C-alpha cells in the first residue's frame, strides 16, 4: 500500500497533457464548421490552461494559482452565458449555424 502511495508522476506530464489539450482545442477551432462546436473548442482551451495553473500551483505550493483557476471558471461561465445568447440571436436572424455563412456582422 505504501509503495502504491509513493508512486510519482512528473509534473511535466501534466503540463504536456495541458499543451496537447490546448493544441486539440486550437485544431477544433480551425476545422469545426459549426458555431457551437467552435465555442466548445474555446472552452477546451480554457480547461487546458486551467490544468497548467493547477500544476504550477502544486509545484510552488501557491494557493493563488488555484484561486486564479476559480476566476477563470467564473469568467468562462459568464462568457458561455453571453456567447450562447449571441448564438441564439444569430440563429434567429440567419437560421443557420455554419460559420462560413455567418461572415458578416450586418444582416
Amino acid at each position: 500500500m505504501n509503495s502504491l502511495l509513493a508512486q510519482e508522476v512528473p509534473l511535466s506530464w501534466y503540463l504536456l497533457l495541458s499543451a496537447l489539450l490546448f493544441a486539440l482545442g486550437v485544431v477544433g477551432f480551425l476545422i469545426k464548421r459549426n458555431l457551437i462546436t467552435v465555442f466548445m473548442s474555446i472552452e477546451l482551451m480554457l480547461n487546458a490552461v486551467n490544468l497548467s495553473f493547477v500544476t504550477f500551483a502544486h509545484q510552488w505550493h501557491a494557493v493563488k494559482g488555484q484561486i486564479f483557476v476559480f476566476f477563470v471558471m467564473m469568467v468562462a461561465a459568464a462568457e458561455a452565458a453571453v456567447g450562447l445568447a449571441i448564438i441564439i440571436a444569430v440563429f434567429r436572424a440567419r437560421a443557420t449555424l455554419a460559420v462560413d455563412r455567418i461572415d458578416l456582422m450586418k444582416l
Partner: protein
Amino acid sequence: MHLILFIVFAGFCLAGAINLLLQSHPISSSLSLIVVMTSLAVLYLLLGAEFLAAAQVIVYAGAIMVLFTFVVMLLNAGREERTMGSGVARVVGFPAVVAGLAAVATVILQAQGLGTATLKDGITSTEELSTVLFTKLLLPFEVTSVLILIAILGAVALARHGDGERTAGK
C-alpha cells in the same frame, strides 16, 4: 496508484478531446467535452486541488455544459456541413499548431526543477483557499460578481431582443 489514475484519466481526457474533433454532430461533441471536463476534475484532485475538482464538476460539467447541450437541442442543430472554406486554416493553421506544440513540449521537457506529484502530498483544503480568497483577494472576487451580473443582464437582453423587435414592429 497516482500513476495508474493519471494514465487512465489523462487517456480519457485526450480521447474525449479527439472525439470532440471527430464527431460531426454537435451533441456528440458536447457530450465528449463533458468527459474531458470530468476527467480533468480527477486530475485536479490528484494535484491536491480539492475545491477546484468539485467546482469543475459543478460549474463546468454541471452548469456550462448543460447550457451548451440545451442550446444544441433548442436550436435543433443538425450535422455539420462539410464546407471546404478553411483552406487558409489547413495550409497555415496546422503547421503552426504542430510547431507551437513542439516548441512548448521541448520547453516543458527541458525544464529543470519541475517536481513530481504523489498521493502523499496532501491536498489544499478549502479553508486554506477561502482564507486567501476572502482576505487578500476580496476586491477581485467582488468585481467578478459584478461581471456575472452584467453577463446575466446581457444574456437576457440578447435572448429577448427578437421578441422586442417583433412586438415593436406590430
